[in-house]
């Protein structure tokens, strides 16, 4: 833990606030967030009203009286709301089955479901486009044959299709959040319920579910924001079916290339921001407080529910789900990467090739972008974890006033749609106010941190809260310094969470698209942008190869870490 060098000895000493390192840490974190998050966002709002220098609602009138924008607003709200509902409806039972029951192969399933979080969502969109397009989608064709239908049962280029793909790729956000809460939930209440004669289902309904409610709300929020601020999926699935969303409109406006276009983009972005903040406010302040009452700090292993005669049918159901939502799309992508003519079966003669795979390892631009992404994602994850650790210590181990301020700011940051963060940084960080980091990797790292730091922070907080301070106290009573007890007691105990948190920040940064689309420059192109460009501009097979390679690397790292930590760690 980084703050260790500055932190004080454990004894409570009376001193002035400015000499207390805790305050200095808070001030540093708050300062960073004020400059790079709060100020740019406020400036964005300011710009929307003062685009011409004086106060004017012209831009608002222009943007919000335009029917196409209205339909985009409505589409965004509908698609994000339904993705949120379905996402949680899928994630909660899955998290429970994987975390708290004797489901067959639950470890495998856990990795598989979390893996979806590690895959660029727009790659999945391409797979679904191929599977469910109304004219020749292979899954549609298959269903028509099996059920003797006269027309395609599904059309992916529709609002329904958009919700389906958004759900399929954003429910892992909910799954991760809910699983984590379930793991640290105090099982004694459930035990009490069981002992009193309630069956597992009743226990689930009357004890587990209510206790999980704050986490479920937090998970729902994450899915909502992710779905509302996604660009890749709507641009691939929605736009061809004339289903526009706020993000696709914003990026269209930016691409029109005029000053007016930029103002319109800003004005539209303000809407997204307001929606996100309202949702965030509601969830944090109506339910957030409960979390600290229901979740105990004790680290006990939750009891495992025996599924009994349902074990096999439920496992079959989960397999079916995994097949449809994860495996088939991934396999489609992997097969595309070795197919020359996507209109012919991959195994027909002369249709198989490794040339796209060769490309991803030889193209200069791909290698450069990979390098950039590796650098930015490693930096964002590392700095993010440093801040996360400090914040976790402040939140869990201290009662210092004001520790909730940076916590709140980090939560707001992650709740702000990506496109809004990127736009606000462009406008405020290109030299106008003394800081010019536009067109650098730094601006990307900052944007990534603002957006994804919370995933890391929550992980560390939950790990730290499971560790009773008595262990640290015991170490210190035995004569170890604060630093030493941190190193020998606390750190080893939360190490798996640190690695997991690091990856939770690293992965989405590694293939980030929406912010990179706006922030990239000549020599700061990222893998996400590159992949998207290949997918939509140059060559889809190359994009598929790249996506499959990312998938292999993710699974490889996961497997390796699992081996090295004797199963203690998995993403």
């Amino acid at each position: 833990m980084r703050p260790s060098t500055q932190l004080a000895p454990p004894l409570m000493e009376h001193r002035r606030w400015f000499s207390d390192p805790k305050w200095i840490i808070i001030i540093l974190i708050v300062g960073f967030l004020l400059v790079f998050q709060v100020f740019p966002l406020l400036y964005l709002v300011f710009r929307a009203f003062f685009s011409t220098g004086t106060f004017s609602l012209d831009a608002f009138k222009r943007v919000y009286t335009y029917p196409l924008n209205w339909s985009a607003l409505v589409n965004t709200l509908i698609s994000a709301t339904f993705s949120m509902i379905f996402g949680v409806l899928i994630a909660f039972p899955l998290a429970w089955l994987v975390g708290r029951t004797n489901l067959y192969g639950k470890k495998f399933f856990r990795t598989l479901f979390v893996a979806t979080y590690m895959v660029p969502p727009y790659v999945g969109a391409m797979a679904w486009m191929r599977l469910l397009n109304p004219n020749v989608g292979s899954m549609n064709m298959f269903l028509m044959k099996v059920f003797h239908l006269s027309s395609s049962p599904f059309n992916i280029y529709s609002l329904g299709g958009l919700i389906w793909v958004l759900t399929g790729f954003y429910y892992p956000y909910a799954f991760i959040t809910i699983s984590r809460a379930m793991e640290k939930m105090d099982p004694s209440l459930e035990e009490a319920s069981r002992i009193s004669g309630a069956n597992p289902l009743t226990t689930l309904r009357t004890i587990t579910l209510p206790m999980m409610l704050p986490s479920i709300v937090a998970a729902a929020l994450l899915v909502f924001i992710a779905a509302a601020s996604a660009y890749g999926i709507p641009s691939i699935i929605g736009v061809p079916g004339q289903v526009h969303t706020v993000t696709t409109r914003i990026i269209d406006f930016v691409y029109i290339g005029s000053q007016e276009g930029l103002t319109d983009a800003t004005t539209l972005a303000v809407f997204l921001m307001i929606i996100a903040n309202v949702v965030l406010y509601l969830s944090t302040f109506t339910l957030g407080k409960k979390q600290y009452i229901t979740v105990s700090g004790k680290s006990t292993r939750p009891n495992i529910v025996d599924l009994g005669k349902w074990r096999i049918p439920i496992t079959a159901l989960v397999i079916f789900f995994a097949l449809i939502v994860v495996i088939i799309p991934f396999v489609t992508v992997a097969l595309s990467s070795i197919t020359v003519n996507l209109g012919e079966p991959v195994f027909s003669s002369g249709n198989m090739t490794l040339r796209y795979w060769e490309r991803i390892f030889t193209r200069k631009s791909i290698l450069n972008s990979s390098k950039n992404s590796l650098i930015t994602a490693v930096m964002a994850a590392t700095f993010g974890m440093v801040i996360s650790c400090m914040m976790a210590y402040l939140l869990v181990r201290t009662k210092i006033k004001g520790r909730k301020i940076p916590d709140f700011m980090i939560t707001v940051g992650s709740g702000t749609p990506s496109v809004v963060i990127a736009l606000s940084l462009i406008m405020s960080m290109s030299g106008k106010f003394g800081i010019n980091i536009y067109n650098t990797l730094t601006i990307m790292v900052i944007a990534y941190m603002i957006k994804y730091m919370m995933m890391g922070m929550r992980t560390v907080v939950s790990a730290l809260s499971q560790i009773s301070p008595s262990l640290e106290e015991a170490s210190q009573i035995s004569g170890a310094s604060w630093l030493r007890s941190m190193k020998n007691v606390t750190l080893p105990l939360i190490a798996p969470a640190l690695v997991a948190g690091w990856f939770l920040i690293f992965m989405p940064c590694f293939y980030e698209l929406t912010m990179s689309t706006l922030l990239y420059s000549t020599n700061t192109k990222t893998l996400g942008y590159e992949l998207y460009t290949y997918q939509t501009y140059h060559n889809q097979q190359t994009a598929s190869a790249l996506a499959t390679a990312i998938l292999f690397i993710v699974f490889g790292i996961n497997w390796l870490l699992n081996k090295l930590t004797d199963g203690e760690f998995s993403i």
Partner: protein
Amino acid sequence: MKKMFVFLCVFMLLGSLAFAGGAAETPKGASDELGGKLLIYTSMYDDVIEAIDETLEDVFPTIDIEFFYGGTGTLQAKIAAEIAAGKLGCDMLMVADPSYALELKGMGVLEPIMINNAADLAFDYDKDGYWYPVRISNMVLAYNPGKFNKADLPNSFYDFAYDKSVAGMVSMSNPLTSGTALDTISALKDKYGYEYYTALGEQKVKIESGSVALTKLETGECKLIMILEESVLQKREMDKSKIEVIYPTDGTIVVPSPIMSINDQWSPNKNSKAAKAVTEWFLSDEGQENIVKAWMHSVSSKYPEAPYDAIPTKQILENTIPVDWENTVALREEMRTKFQEAVAKK
């Protein structure tokens, strides 16, 4: 702590093995005359850039030439932002929209370069040397003979938008991001009026890039697409694809894409000497040979060959729909907005 450090190291190692493998730069030898860096923004496809880049490395071993690609519209947005910030990111531009050359010349960011063989050019060029055409891209139609008959499909741009038998199964590029698509909708607006956009919207045309559209032809998801000839030719040669070009009966839209250099005041590397050499090379026989090899037509009247599987340039020029370049600059935003409105409607 140690354990964690080891994990991170393992990961870093893995990452660098997988990705950074080929990223090492080759050291540049001492240059006698030409040298330095040269950054070119271009809308050419990646495969084309890769091929040309390799040749350029052989021809100009002392210049560090780097390409940055993006759709013309994407690059225009980028350049607009860069101009607002007071500094351009590129030394040269090879985008697909000739009207943009007129605009940039007007803005005073271009460097005049006089070449010796300008008289050989078969197309208009700037007499002051601010821009030259360097490659010909042709907007055409394409279909998949493996799935449909040419006789059953529309063979003209007009029918592409008005023939209901292909409704919902047609695709074209986005004029917001592609320069040739912008020139195309400009030419078609001049010929058929803004109603043409409405017709496209009613036809439920899908707006996506050429490579996505080609895949949709292969799979049969689309019957007919509006696309650049070069993309089809490339697919025919590289992938042995059966997809065929239809040269529209109402005329092909011919887009002579310009090459331009940014003047020292605006360019990042202030390397106008190298820019001149590269411009001359592209317009030389050797340069044009590379253009033709990259499935585009040559701009030189002395270069008679057509790209792989294409009909001769002359034959294409016999039946074209002209583009009014000045008008395209003036009406760019209006056309983009009108087009958006028409095709984005449900």
